[in-house]
């Protein structure tokens, strides 16, 4: 058993900690207020190689491990969840499907520019009427004269409409199987495809600086070769993609909780009430001790899931446990962090106010708490 980070894991954590503190932190409040996509930050992150962090060097990546990836997301989320989700969605949802299921030609065409951070990419699963019930996908792709002709709508798609976005990979019904069930496949849809349009950015409660849009497909045609992976395996493939994604979303929750704890601790030491810093009062100490305990617990779970993935083991259960638990921990921690700040925590100029808003989606995105419990129960054999 060894809880020490390796030299390069430590170096990647240090890099992301310094980058978040020196580059991201001074811009976080304004980006959130203006709901402005952090182009300058994203370009710098691309230059540092963060968007290709876990992919092999031959595909333009850095060849680092999942533990390092989780550490990177955690450190960014400690300062700004919008920046963290932009990275996490790109790596886990945008680029990973090409790495996991793409042909060598698709990897060369799509994965390499994504790993280099030259492009961003979306993953379109959710629909206005199909969220947790992803099998209810209504979007259809019909094969006509060597082309997939797509019709339908996708909702809440991250990184789908930035100036850097190259396209989105979607799930679509491509037929029915022998038993009459929908056959779902993954299809690559480049941004310039006629008939493929993006809405304006949603006006969101949290993650305001990240890019989230609704996508519409009206007879949008792409070549037959834009099928990603095996026809009819779309549902299975995206479940596998989401397993990996849970590690990064769990890391994001831990980072967010940690950032709120950092702020609460700093505030409690500085704020004087009844003649002494409020950190001297047991009521505040107990809150901070509980926050620390829960963050440490969640962090260890995330690291274990990442480690299992790096070891090539089945990590689905640990990743689900970590995602569910760290999402709930982040809610309790941001709530107490605001409570410790008192009225100031309700004011926008204190980061905990933004963190409080950024937290809620951690319990909804990439599998709600309820779906997560279902996944866990199934993995327990129930």
């Amino acid at each position, binding site marked *: 058993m060894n809880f020490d980070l390796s030299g390069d894991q430590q170096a990647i954590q240090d890099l992301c900690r310094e980058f978040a503190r020196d580059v991201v932190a001074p811009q976080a409040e304004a980006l959130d207020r203006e709901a402005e996509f952090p182009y300058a930050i994203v370009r710098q992150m691309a230059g540092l*190689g963060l968007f290709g962090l876990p992919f092999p060097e031959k595909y333009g990546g850095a060849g680092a491990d999942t533990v390092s990836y989780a550490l990177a997301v955690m450190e960014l989320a400690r300062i700004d969840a919008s920046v963290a989700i932009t990275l996490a969605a790109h790596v886990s949802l945008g680029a990973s499907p090409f790495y996991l299921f793409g042909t060598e030609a698709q990897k060369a065409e799509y994965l390499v520019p994504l790993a280099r951070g030259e492009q961003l990419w979306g993953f379109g699963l959710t629909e206005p009427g199909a969220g947790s019930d992803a099998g209810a996908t209504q979007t259809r792709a019909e094969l006509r004269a060597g082309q997939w002709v797509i019709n339908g709508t996708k909702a809440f798609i991250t990184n789908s409409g930035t100036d850097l976005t190259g396209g989105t990979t979607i799930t679509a019904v491509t037929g029915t199987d022998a038993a009459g069930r929908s056959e779902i496949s993954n299809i690559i849809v480049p941004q310039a495809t006629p008939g493929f349009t993006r809405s304006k950015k949603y006006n969101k409660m949290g993650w305001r600086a990240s890019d989230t849009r609704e996508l519409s497909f009206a007879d949008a045609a792409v070549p037959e070769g834009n099928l990603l992976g095996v026809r009819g395996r779309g549902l299975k493939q995206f479940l596998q993609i989401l397993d990996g994604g849970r590690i990064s979303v769990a890391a994001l929750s831990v980072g967010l909780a940690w950032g709120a704890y950092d702020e609460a601790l700093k505030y409690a030491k500085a704020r004087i009430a009844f003649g002494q810093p409020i950190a001297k009062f047991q009521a505040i100490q107990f809150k901070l001790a509980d926050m620390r305990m829960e963050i440490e617990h969640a962090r260890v779970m995330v690291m274990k899931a990442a480690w299992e993935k790096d070891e090539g083991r089945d990590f689905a259960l640990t990743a689900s446990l970590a995602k569910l638990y760290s999402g709930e921990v982040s809610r309790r921690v941001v709530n107490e962090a605001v409570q410790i700040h008192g009225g100031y925590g309700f004011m926008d100029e204190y980061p905990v106010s933004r963190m409080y808003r950024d937290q809620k989606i951690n319990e909804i995105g990439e599998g709600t708490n309820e779906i997560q419990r279902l996944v866990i129960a199934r993995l327990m054999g129930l």
Partner: protein
Amino acid sequence: MVIPEDRQLNIVVAVKLVPDTNADKRIDPQTRRLVRSAAETVLNPFDEYAIEAGLQLKEQLADGSSVTIVTMAPESGKEVVRKALAMGADRAVMLSDPAFAGSDVWATAYVLAAGIRRIGFDLVLTGTQSTDAITGELPGALAEYLGVPGLTYAREIHVAAGRVRVKRETDTGYQTLSAPLPALASITKSAAEPRFASLKGIMAAKKKEIAVLRLADLEIAQAVGGDGAKLEVTELTASPARAAGKTVTAADGNAGARTIVAFLKERNLL
């Protein structure tokens, strides 16, 4: 020694490992030295400007010139040194020996000079000071022991035709100085911002060499470590706690301002 124009340069950046400024610090009352733990050791932030200057010179020359990091530190600091390699330096040399412990700035400069001569150098770069001792004396002492011109407080540095030219910052303006190589320059914080180590750099640094030189590997002709130190810390005391401030209560803002102005004038502070 005259350095021919077309030769690749050996740029050596001397760095110090210091306690993380964000970590809690403790002084051993017996030795009056800082208790150092490996986990809380970082590259001296001032030295990152020297590393950046060295890397930019190397990139501008683009002729195969190299950047070598040298530090006098226990081997436990290896991973800290690796950060400089991740930023892009080619190799590192650690001068590590229990005999070096307790060196003051002069003994440190002497050991560093011995190490740098052993490595071979055309240009030595340093930061202007360390965040722990803050003497600011090392660049001068090192130039002295190396027997080369010391161009201190450089905010810009160029190398051409076997000479180094720096723009130097003074209290009242700038000087441009030039000297033949080999030479030493210390780089200020107003030079280029140090780069972040990229992922590519971090992964590449794993394969780069960090050599370790001991006392016996160096030509040392005088006492080093605590025995070679000229300076001794004779006493350490905490600064006195600041007295509570004075609160001015007044009927309105104008009256309050007048009271404060009078208070400051009385003490010749205004």
